[in-house]
């Protein structure tokens, strides 16, 4: 682009006195230049802003899932009280009364004066009576001795400590009332109620829809683990074998072309279609057990194969031909040259690609929903190693989805917490991939 143009000759040219003085057109062009550059910078900043927003909302909303509110009480029940409570019509209510009397005593000792009744205790701590009765029926030898109970508080009390529930927004419901918060504050001051690390969340299984506090991600972590095991055992050998054939042995013909086009197409097929495939082939046709990590693993294997094949081929291609030639030169067969020399040198690249493929598979949700690996089937840990593959279980992302889809908002906190756990796993896998790449990186 120049200042001269066809129409420009007709206009009277303004004489410029100095090259330091910019004319209007140059200023306009420079402004447009600056604007364009600012747009580019802005776009990157917007992208990074989204990333930061995402990270902040995950951490801020997810961290509360890792703490729980527990009530520490020391409670003594003697044989006479036990017999008396067991003799009444409403047995758990009798235990509740005993517990409340005990709690009142404790609070009075510490000089706290708050009025509360059984309903309030039930709103704060759930069915205390049932818990106590269960404990003493299972451990009759503990009768007459002081036992330290750590009772989990209800999820709304938890929310009060986390700031999710505040006095301003609280409406009196059957779950929590304004007067209960006075009691909570009093208990907190007396040191009876405190915040603790929530091990149940890390080790537990999914709970019922009415018990957000007891929900944990542990069982679905196990489900994810068995699925990843299936993916690793199947996808790595098959992917590597396929790449070796395509990269080292395949002749240029229609069949090879077909395979190559197929692989690049499979890489772009939406994940949900793989779920449909799994449902139709593995469950409808082969009658493999529904909701089993084995089926989930098979589906994810088919999904991850293209990723692994593409990265493995890149790794094989990066090994220089001189290695192959040298091996062939000393009398190795083509197969020996590949398996003894090229493959070991390409291994770091292959492993990096595999880990990245596994990380992708770990975060995938949609196909798992179709084969029935939804959260609420993960009610417990599988029995034994083989059971881990065939017993109904969930996976981390499916568990998160189940929590997010529940009506009770207390589960949202669990969903965010689950995402933190999932991201920690992904981060670990990526870190391993990066370390492998750094450690074995080789320039030819």
């Amino acid at each position, binding site marked *: 682009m120049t200042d001269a143009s066809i129409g420009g000759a007709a206009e009277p040219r303004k004489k410029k006195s100095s090259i330091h003085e910019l004319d209007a057109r140059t200023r306009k*062009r*420079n402004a447009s230049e600056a604007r364009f550059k600012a747009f580019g910078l802005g776009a990157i900043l917007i992208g990074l802003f989204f990333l930061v927003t995402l990270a902040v909302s995950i951490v801020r909303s997810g961290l509360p899932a890792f703490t729980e509110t527990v009530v520490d009480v020391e409670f003594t029940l003697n044989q006479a009280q036990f017999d008396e409570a067991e003799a009444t019509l409403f047995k758990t209510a009798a235990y509740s009364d005993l517990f409340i009397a005990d709690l009142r005593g404790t609070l009075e000792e510490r000089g706290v004066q708050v009025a509360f009744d059984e309903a309030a205790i039930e709103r704060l701590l759930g069915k205390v009576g049932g818990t106590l009765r269960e404990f003493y029926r299972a451990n009759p030898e503990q009768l007459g001795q002081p036992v330290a109970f750590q009772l989990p508080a209800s999820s709304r009390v938890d929310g009060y400590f986390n700031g999710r529930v505040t006095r301003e927004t609280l409406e009196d419901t059957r779950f929590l009332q304004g007067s209960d918060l006075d009691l909570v504050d009093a208990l907190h001051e007396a040191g009876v109620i405190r915040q603790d690390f929530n091990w149940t969340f890390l080790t537990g299984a999914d709970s019922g829809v009415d018990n957000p506090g007891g929900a944990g991600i542990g069982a679905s972590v196990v489900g994810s683990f068995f699925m990843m095991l299936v993916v690793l055992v199947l996808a790595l050998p098959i992917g590597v074998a396929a790449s070796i054939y395509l990269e080292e042995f395949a002749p240029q013909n229609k069949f090879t072309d077909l395979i190559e086009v197929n692989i690049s197409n499979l890489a772009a097929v939406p994940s949900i*279609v793989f779920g*449909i495939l799994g449902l139709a082939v593995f469950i409808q046709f082969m009658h493999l057990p529904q909701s089993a990590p084995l089926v989930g693993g098979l589906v994810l294997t088919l999904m991850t194969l293209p990723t692994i094949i593409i990265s493995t081929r890149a790794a094989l291609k990066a090994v220089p031909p001189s290695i192959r030639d040298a091996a062939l030169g000393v009398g190795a067969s083509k197969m020996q040259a590949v398996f003894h020399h090229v493959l070991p040198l390409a291994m770091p690249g292959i492993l990096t690609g595999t880990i990245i493929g596994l990380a992708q598979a770990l*975060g995938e949700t*949609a196909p798992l929903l*179709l084969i029935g690996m939804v959260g609420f089937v993960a009610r417990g840990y599988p029995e034994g190693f083989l059971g881990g593959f065939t017993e109904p279980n969930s996976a981390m*992302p499916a568990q998160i989805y189940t929590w997010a889809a529940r009506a009770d908002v207390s589960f949202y906190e669990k969903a965010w917490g689950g995402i933190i756990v999932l991201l920690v796993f992904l981060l670990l896998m990526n870190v391993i991939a990066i370390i492998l790449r750094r450690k074995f990186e080789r320039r030819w």
Partner: protein
Amino acid sequence: MPLLWLFLIVLAIAAVGFVLGRARALASAGGDVRNLHSLPSYYGNNVAIKTVVPAILVMLIWLIVQPMIVNSTISGMIPESSVAENSSLGLVMSEVRRTADGLDNAVANGDMTEAFARDARADFTDVTQRLKDAGQIVTSDVTQPILRAAQSYRIMNATGNLIMSGIVLALALAGLLWGLRDSHAAFRARNTVEAAVRALLIGAASIAILTTIGIILSLVFNTVEFFRLYPATDFFFGTSWAPSFSGRGGSSDLGVLPLLWGTFYISIVALVVAVPIGLFAAVYLSEYATPRVRAVAKPMLEVLAGIPTIVYGLFALLTVGPLLLGIFGDDGLGWMQAGTAVMTAGLVMGIMLIPFVSSLSDDIINAVPQAMRDGSYGLGATQSETIKQVILPAALPGIVGAILLAASRAIGETMIVVLGAGAAAKLSLNPFEAMTTVTAKIVSQLTGDADFSSPEALVAFALGMTLFVLTLGLNVLALYIVRKYREQYE
């Protein structure tokens, strides 16, 4: 015999074969490796391959075929009359399987003797009660035909497994003998083993084709089944989507148009977000950014692509939705009724797609040779003029390809729309209304205990087919554009 044991036994025979074959070949060469055609371990491998491969192949095929044969035989046994009015053969068959599993478990736990479980004349009310007592989950009442079917199901499976174990073991032993007979010094063991390995490699590569065939067959069969129950014209041109799971046959409206509209609308919103941001980011990264900025910013943006979509779904549902509702909802402009809407899902999906557009475009812009930039600067153009009038036109086919790939991702994306877009199938122009997409409806039609013979469940396969064809078409188009219009530079 449990499968795992059978598998381990075959492997053990192969291990023995490896040792024997190697020793036998060495012995035939008089203990001198130089007299052998191949290295000793190749003779061992030869025996091991001949032991394992035929046996395991037969085992796999048997495992796939046997349930099919058993199922078809058993469903032939069930009389028409015992299929209830609101039920189907498929449901009865699953009851049969459940009963058979219950009997198996009861026998395994010692609650029932094998003879009792097999006895065809067993009083079925008694069996039901005993199964319930044994803690097995059984359908409310096990009827006579179901119990008979379950019993023959168990017997057929047991005999089938027994025959399979016998055949597999016989094959393994035969392979062992065959391999051992070949283990002598003149045998070209390496060539044989390498041919076998090569066949395995080809087999692995063919799995991609098998997967595609599997996808197409499973979609086509079920789609054809669906169109037998539901007219194709109503599916493709129907403007109303109202499945009813209670009524069977004809009472549901299953028109795909509202879903397609929702899919396209959300994808367009996503692309409107992702394309400008991604493109400007790519231009800045490749043309303006210093190496240090680039080294930090590019991987940071790519992190957005590595985050699982469930995270974006939750982000849409719990962060972006309420945020938009605060601005456009009843408290603000009054355009929006609920947090889940086309805008919510589209915006979040756009964020997810930014790195797809930016990274691909960045690579393509980088591939434009420096000489073209220098030429443009030489003519007095500023950097932005060079980019707008030289580099972008040169990179355009690649960029269009990248955008099409992003579009196909957007169409196939599931979790964001399941959580963020709502469930109402609507033909509406308002981006602040809830709409739904093909993928979200596949999930909702196939989760839950749907019976696979009802049109309400089968429609998911027709939707899957539509989705598959759409995304495949976009991908092929993208590849075609990139290949056909790519500028070749020296």
